[in-house]
């Protein structure tokens, strides 16, 4: 008789694709189960773990990165392995994973940005904000990006947390940045920046802006950038006022209060100016005649209430032109389809029900495949929101195991999976390797009074490991 799956004689073997926060939360929930013996192998296309905690969270927000201490504890389990630098769909295929694991969880996040869908969007000087973020954070795929920081005026479209990060990095002084782990090449480029005016553009009003109060406060405390806003744009319209009063939403009241105070501030002669704009949407990027962004045409919006009472923007017939030479858009994110995995185009996620991947034709769960995090529900919430999200997926996984609905891998041994990875990607990075890289980065940082100096290319990382 074959032993039951999930025992020490035959552990439940799980492959997690993606080493971001959700991957670690999923691994934690899996490994914590006192009744089922689980072995987790985590794959990431990059050699380094932590996903957006390393490559998305802004370098001047180091405290947020402490969450990685919890991830390291998960990784310390003897039943956990990390295969860094191993790409799903390229180095290992779905069929490979099905032959080696009982269950597969996709935690690949929302890797691409939404477009504004306006004329001129692809002019030189118009970029997705995520490219800039990945670049200043030392993402190996984006280190060679170039942004024309000789421009004096920049517009950042969107008022979410990513947009707030981008304007902060653009407005920080070299001294402020030099004590962070911003990538060295980015620090050099930002040192030479000639950016003077930064516009942050929200399509709705101040009460609907997604950035949080701590972020709004930070924007008002920049060392060498004066913040300002247009008084009429930060006053609450009657619909927003009614909504805020009805729900007694104190956080939003506080946010609006801070923004109104910014509108009243007199300039103090700092060398940069950050202008917060609300109720405006870009409708066109205007060329300088040589294919470069020279200006942005904006339409003024007004708000209307949908039948649930949610407030949405509607364009008016009032337009204006904003001269800007550099544009970053941060108007939403989408997941990227994985080879062989059903995708839900409407929402930009893997087609799923509570994390169970569904067959697009029958709408029934596909045995052994799951999704968690942003690739399951879309990009929303803070890092910690992915913990209950991953818990829901893992609950489904254990339910399915109890019903016997798991894959039947031909090689369900840890050694067989390792042999496969070694053959396909001999240069894979283990967790022990990563901890070595980490020490090297931290040591390089210590010498400069910085949290770390990142290794930003795969070659550099492998060389540091003596390969």
């Amino acid at each position, binding site marked *: 008789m074959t032993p039951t799956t999930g025992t020490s004689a035959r552990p439940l073997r799980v492959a997690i694709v993606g080493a971001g926060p959700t991957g670690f939360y999923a691994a934690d929930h899996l490994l914590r189960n006192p009744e089922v013996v689980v072995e987790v192998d985590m794959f990431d296309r990059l050699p380094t773990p932590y996903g957006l905690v390393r490559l998305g969270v802004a370098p001047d927000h180091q405290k*947020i990165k402490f969450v990685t201490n919890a991830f390291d504890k998960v990784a310390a389990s003897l039943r956990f392995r990390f295969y860094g630098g191993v790409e799903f769909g390229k180095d290992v295929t779905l069929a490979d994973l099905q032959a080696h694991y009982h269950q597969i969880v996709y935690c690949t996040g929302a890797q691409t940005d939404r477009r504004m869908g306006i004329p001129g969007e692809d002019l030189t000087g118009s970029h997705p904000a995520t490219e800039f973020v990945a670049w200043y954070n030392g993402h190996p795929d984006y280190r060679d990006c170039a942004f024309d920081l000789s421009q004096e005026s920049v517009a950042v479209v969107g008022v979410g947390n990513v947009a707030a990060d981008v304007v902060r990095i653009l407005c920080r002084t070299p001294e402020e940045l030099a004590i962070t782990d911003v990538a060295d090449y980015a620090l050099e480029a930002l040192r030479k920046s000639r950016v003077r005016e930064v516009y942050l553009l929200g399509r709705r009003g101040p009460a609907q802006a997604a950035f949080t109060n701590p972020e709004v406060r930070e924007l008002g405390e920049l060392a060498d950038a004066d913040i300002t806003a247009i008084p009429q744009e930060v006053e609450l319209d009657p619909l927003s006022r009614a909504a805020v009063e009805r*729900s007694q939403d104190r956080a939003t009241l506080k946010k609006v209060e801070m923004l109104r105070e910014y509108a009243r501030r007199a300039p103090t002669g700092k060398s940069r100016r950050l202008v917060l704009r609300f109720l405006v949407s870009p409708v066109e990027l205007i060329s300088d005649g040589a294919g470069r962004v020279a200006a942005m045409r904006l339409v003024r919006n007004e708000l209307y209430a949908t039948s649930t009472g*949610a407030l949405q923007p509607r364009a008016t017939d009032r337009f204006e032109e904003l001269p800007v030479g550099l544009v970053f858009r941060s108007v939403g994110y989408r997941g990227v389809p994985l080879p062989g995995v059903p995708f839900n185009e409407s929402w930009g996620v893997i087609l799923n029900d509570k994390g169970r991947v569904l067959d697009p034709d029958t709408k029934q769960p596909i045995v052994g495949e799951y999704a968690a995090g942003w690739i399951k529900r879309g990009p929303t919430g803070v890092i910690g929101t992915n913990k209950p*999200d991953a818990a829901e997926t893992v609950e489904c996984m254990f339910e399915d195991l109890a019903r016997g609905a798991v894959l039947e891998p031909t090689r369900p041994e840890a050694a067989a999976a390792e042999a496969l990875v070694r053959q396909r990607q001999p240069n894979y990075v283990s967790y022990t390797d990563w901890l070595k890289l*980490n020490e090297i980065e931290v040591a390089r940082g210590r010498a400069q009074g910085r949290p770390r100096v990142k290794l930003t290319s795969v070659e550099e990382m492998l060389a540091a490991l003596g390969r």
Partner: protein
Amino acid sequence: MNIANILARKGSMAVTVQPEQSIREALALLERHNIGALVAVQGDRPVGILSERDIVREAARNESFFARTVGDLMTRDVITGQPPDDLLTVAYTMTERRIRHLPVVDQGRLVGMVSIGDVLKAQRDQYQGEVDTLQTQLLAGEGGQPR
């Protein structure tokens, strides 16, 4: 967080009926899908909502309720949501107006349904996540370096 984020992790569409269908058929659908409400549609446009409450109310006073039609019992004045509607507002409206099921339409077309349970769970997850993240930051510095 908005309605789209809830629909993204709900594989199923809203279960629909035609107003001409019988209550017997509607009950069979509610039972088969283990749900509490159906959206009555004409084409892909919602024209009403039929909840288990509507059926119970009729059953309590009319022995032959089985033979009635969905159109007889459904609520016609349906409040619908849109994918970008934010959850805070939606949760407020649903609790204030005692709405348990909210059909979601996109440009007039039915694209799904969210229940008050879906909305409250999403809100709970959001708050849990925020608490977790704040705690991590408050504890920052105790034991180790960030990455």
